[in-house]
Every structure is written in structure tokens, then in C-alpha cells.
């Protein structure tokens, strides 16, 4: 078996990501995103299960007003992310490595991942964006809210890091 290729240089990859973001702005007028896809899918599930619940929440409504939440721009973009990342990992021989070497993560780490995801879902919903949609895309446009969000997330991350150290030996 081929050895996995090492990761790319962060500065080069960062510039490439910046060019993707620039292309996104030029082609669509808006930036990249991620958390919005989760909100869109959640809205789609809620309206399918209980339309009355969706009507009473302006949050779900905001994701249902422009056509089907299942084929929203950001949902299709995230499907693209899954495809692009899977292809990159497979071509570099990194997919097997992650299965073989890290194996099954400890149960505590999995619970931490779910809890962390819930907190990020709440945080991104309140802030109207996540690391890609608000911090990166809004940051590039010098949005004040994006910079507040970015600084707050790093401050909280650094302050909380010593408390959750046991998950990251």
C-alpha cells in the first residue's frame, strides 16, 4: 500500500481557499458557508414532520421562504464539500489511514464531539453564521459582527482549552 501523502503547506492552502472564497463572491455575490446547511436541513425536517411547528418559528420560516430547503444553495455547496474532501483524502491515500491508525475514538471523545456540535449549532444560529460563513467570509468584507464573532470564538476556545484537556492528550 502507498504511504499517505503529507498535508499541504497551510499558507499555500490558505491562499487557495482565499481564491475559492473570492471566486464565490465574484460568481454569487455571497461568501462560503456551512452552518446554514444544517439549519436548512433542520427546517426541511421540521416542516415535513410538523408544518404547524415550522410556521410558529421565524427561524425555520427564514429557511423555507426561498423554495425547497433540500436544494438550497448552501446545502448543495455542502454536498460538494463532502465530495471534494472525500476525493482529496482518497487520492492522497489518507482515508484508510484515519480508519486504521486512529481506530475507534474513545466514547468520551464522541460525546464531546456531539456536545461541541450542539454548542456550535446554538452559537452559529445566534451569530447568523459560523467559521466559514461569518468569520471568514464576513471577515474578508471587514464586517464588524464577523470580527466580534471571530475574536469571541478564539477567546472562548483558549479559555476553555485547559478545562477540556483530557480529550486532547
Amino acid at each position, binding site marked *: 500500500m502507498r504511504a499517505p501523502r503529507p*498535508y499541504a503547506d*497551510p*499558507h499555500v*492552502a*490558505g*491562499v487557495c*481557499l482565499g*481564491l475559492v472564497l*473570492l471566486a*464565490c*463572491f465574484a*460568481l*454569487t455575490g*455571497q461568501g*462560503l458557508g456551512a*452552518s446554514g446547511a444544517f439549519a436548512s436541513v*433542520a*427546517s426541511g425536517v*421540521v416542516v415535513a414532520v410538523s408544518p404547524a411547528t415550522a410556521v410558529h*418559528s421565524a*427561524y*425555520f420560516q427564514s429557511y423555507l421562504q426561498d423554495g425547497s430547503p433540500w436544494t438550497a444553495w448552501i446545502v448543495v*455547496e*455542502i454536498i*460538494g*464539500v*463532502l465530495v471534494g*474532501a472525500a476525493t*482529496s483524502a482518497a487520492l492522497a491515500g489518507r482515508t484508510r489511514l*484515519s480508519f486504521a491508525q486512529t481506530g475507534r475514538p474513545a466514547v468520551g471523545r464522541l460525546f*464531546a*464531539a*456531539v456536545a*461541541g456540535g*450542539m*454548542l*456550535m*449549532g*446554538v452559537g*452559529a444560529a*445566534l451569530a447568523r453564521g459560523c*467559521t*466559514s460563513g461569518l*468569520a471568514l*467570509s464576513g471577515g474578508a*468584507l*471587514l*464586517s*464588524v*459582527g*464577523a*470580527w466580534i464573532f*471571530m*475574536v*469571541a470564538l478564539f*477567546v*472562548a*476556545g483558549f479559555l*476553555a*482549552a485547559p478545562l477540556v484537556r483530557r480529550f486532547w492528550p
Partner: protein
Amino acid sequence: MNDLLVAAGIGVAFGWALECVGLGDPPKLAGQFYLRDFTVLKVMLSAMLTAMLGIFWAGRLGMLDLGALYVPETYLLPQLVGGLVFGLGFVLSGLCPGTSCVALASGRIEGAATMLGLFAGVLFIGLAFPAIEPFYRSTPRGPLTLQLVTGLPYGVVVALVTAVGVSTLAWIAKREAAR
């Protein structure tokens, strides 16, 4: 239809860039908060500076209509509190919403676990929205930018952010070289 092809293409490139630099690897992302691995900061700063300078110069050269770009609306308190809650979640799972998809796509079960949590988090906000809505809509400031707040010309703010960003990257490189 054309829009969705663009969405898929942009998404593929986005996911590819994140995976090839290792941003689907939770210990690597969490390592940023223990100052062991600076990949997160390096990638975010390089990407933001590239896009910011690209947007500025494309606008200056008349290749891009800056008025047509969507500037996120600022809500001071929700974005401050949202950022704090988000940062806590980030260091717990070692992934963010975009990179959780990358983690899953490269075969990591933590990616799926984080995605499940994200889904639950936004579902909670949506269901509890009538109670949360007053806070969600508090302290609105519209599409506020750093140049509007400071009163400085756009080009000056871009130059200042570039100087701070490049200095930070240089400081990180120097710190790593010293080890």
C-alpha cells in the same frame, strides 16, 4: 440550475482545500487552542487576507461591483455571545461545521458525531425561537464595516488588517523556527 452547479463546484473546491491541509483532523484543529499546531490560524489568516485583498483590488480595478456583495448584518450581543458559545463547542469537538463534513468525508466518525450535534443545536434554536427571538434581534447595527466604524478609507483599513495579519503569520513562523 446553473446556480446549483456553481454551488457544487465551489463546494468541491472548498472541501478539497480544507482536507488537503489537514482540517478534517480533530486533534490538529484542537491543537490550535493548546498552541501545538497553528494550521487553523495560518489557513484562516492566509485565506482571509487573500480574499480581502482580492475583493479590494477587483473593486478598485472595476472588475467587481462591491455594492452587489452581501455584507453580513451586525448584531453586537448575539454575535458576541454566539462566538463565545461557538468557541467552547469548537475546542470540545475539535471541528467546526465545515470541517465536520471534511472529517466525515475522510472516514472519521467524530465528523458524523459533530454533524449530529450541530443538527440538534440548530433544531433547538428553531424550536425555542419564540423565546429566543428578542435576544436574537437585539443590538442590530445593519451591514456595519470596520471602515464605517473607524471613519477611515476602505484602502487604509485593508492595509492595516494586512499589516496585522502578515505580522501575526510572521510571528508564528518565527516561533516555530525557534523550536
